[in-house]
């Protein structure tokens, strides 16, 4: 199987994730978009590692997973906190700092 296909898939997944972030209002869904982008990046890392016969890309993929896990914890906590105070999970409503 041609390895390039994996890269194409990673690009498609990344684009879907980015569009989700840009288009959707619900913070949870936006979050899912971010996760999709991260995993697309992971897929690209692993593919390149395979292409070059070098394990560094696979190691980085593991780092990304760890960081993503931590980011999800913090991000979901923020979303819950915002939902409690503003009764909304829409990212467009979070504009208190705007004068």
């Amino acid at each position, binding site marked *: 199987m041609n390895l390039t296909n994996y890269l194409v898939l990673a690009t498609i997944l990344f684009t879907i994730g*980015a569009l989700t*972030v*840009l*288009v959707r*209002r619900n913070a949870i869904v936006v979050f899912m978009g971010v996760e999709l982008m991260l995993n697309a990046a992971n897929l690209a890392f692993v593919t390149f590692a395979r292409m070059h016969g070098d394990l560094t890309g696979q190691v980085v993929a593991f780092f990304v997973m760890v960081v993503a896990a931590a980011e999800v914890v913090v991000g979901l906590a923020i979303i819950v906190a915002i939902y409690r105070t503003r009764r909304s999970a829409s*990212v*467009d409503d*979070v*504009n208190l*700092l*705007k004068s």
Partner: protein
Amino acid sequence: MTTALGGLPAVLTAAGPASAVAPADGALGLAWLLVALPLAGAAVLLLTGRRADRWGHLLGTATPVAALVVAVAMWVALLGSSDRVRELELGTWLPGGAFSVDLGMRVDPLSMTFVLLVTFVGSLIHVYSIAYMAHDPHRRRFFAYLNLFVAAMLLLVLADSYVLLFVGWEGVGLASYLLIGFWDHERPNAVAAKKAFVVNRVGDIGLIVAIMAMVAVAGSTDVGVVHEAVGAAGEGWATLIGLMLLLAACGKSAQFPLQSWLGDAMAGPTPVSALIHAATMVTAGVYLVVRSGPVYEAAPTALLVVAVVGAITLLFGAVVGCAKDDIKKVLAASTMSQIGYMMLAAGLGPIGYAFAIFHLLTHGFFKAGLFLGAGSVMHGMGDEVDMRRFGALARYMRVTWVTMALGWLAIIGVPPFSGFWSKDRIVESAFAVAGTWEPWVFGTVALVGVGITAFYMSRLFFMTFHGTRRWDDGTGVVPGGEPTGRVDHPHESPALMTWPMIVLAVGSAALGGALAIRGAFTTWLEPVTGHVEHHEPVLPVVAIMVTTFLLIAVGVVLAWRQYAAAPVAVVPPRGSVLTRAARRDLYQDAVAEAVLMRPGQYLTRSLVFADRQVVDGAVSGVARGTAGAGELLRRLQTGFVRSYALQMVVGIVALVVVVLAVRI
């Protein structure tokens, strides 16, 4: 050696840089008392306040008298010693590593002469003031200021470094300011005081610059050290220091072009005019020039400028004196003119130094006497100063008349009165100075000055004491003019006022002759001024003398015909162009206003404008630009998270495109 010094803490007998000069021991070690006594008097009078009102004038008079006693003791001690230049070290004043200023006093014939003049005339004027200021509610304050003046003046003449001299210099300026504006509830007096202060500041800049130059050249401000170093430093430095010292002298001594304040300074009480603006303070400039003789010796150009300034002021003051009707302003103009004589003499170099100081001494007596006489006339005439409102007062004020007559004869130079001995020597020296055109120009100016002096002083004397009565004696008839509505009862002043006048009149009559015997005074000053061989004048001495007498006679006769034999108008006639110019002090104020004040105001106004527009404009422009840029950038911050995300994506895509485009 220092037994008489009592509690004085640090008398260093032979230490410091001035160790070449013999220390002041015995009675001479009391020099510090001269300054301390009047200073303590001023402090007590000012600090105790109204509680001292009853006895303040007595304490105020006692301190200069005590200083006079000390001065006489010192004088006797100095006369009995062969080494007549002494230094009293009182310790270090400003310790500053390589550069330090010692607190010391220089006792030599020059400073001793001044000390005696200041304490003697000062004491007499204090006594006079007791009666003159008797009805003034602020008499205690007046005596405090007078004491302050005496202390500062003595510090000025005794200082052994230019920095200490500067302290005294400013002290007399302050006292002068306070006393000119003593009756400052009237606006013109306060304005006159301010004018004197400001004009003096201009001169003080000269002294400050001179001191800076001395530090640069000699690394010291000690009089002796500076004088040695300046000779070695070259003519450029000496000329700079000399001209700057002259500027200072011009400010203090009311010499051209800084003469404008003296006439207005007559706003002060008359004893102040007598002591400060005639006898002592205004002669400090002459003292400074003579004291700095070695500097001028190394700078012939500066010396010539001194003589020129003296000659100009001599004629300036004399011309102004001819036109003024205010008796005190005539005397002020005359003071200016006589100090011009002293400056001229000092500017002649070593041959003139002794005569400058000699004239200063005799002038101190007769001019103080004349001022006290004027004060006595004012006292008897209800504070009137317009001579056109006097006339025929000789009958009513016998003592004032006689004492002023002696002062008048002394100042116009009639032998054998004091002024003759001193002024005649100056005229002679002016003709004897080295040079091609100098003896003729300076000699002629001095001679012409003698004639004009005789005219305006006779005018003052005749207008006041002779001629027709021009005041209302109660009959309501005033010959030659309208009555003022005020009836005058001219009367002689009390004994406390007449006695000082009598003493000064005796001095005016006899002092010059006594000191001129076998050149006693010149010999006495030799340790300071140096010995000078007699120079032959370009004209025979007899010719000069005869011309002098002729000019005096012409001046007196003219004044007699115009102001005693003929009736004097109460309303001043229009007069010639020169008279009108002289009445306005030869437009000195108008010139100063046009040349200095207006451009100065224009300069400050344009500086303010530049500050507002350029400096402030740049600063607030930057602030406004920053704020405007912030206002524009603010619009990008919408608060929508998704638009931020879009911006980031677009930015990253753009970056990637750029990076790839560069790669390919």
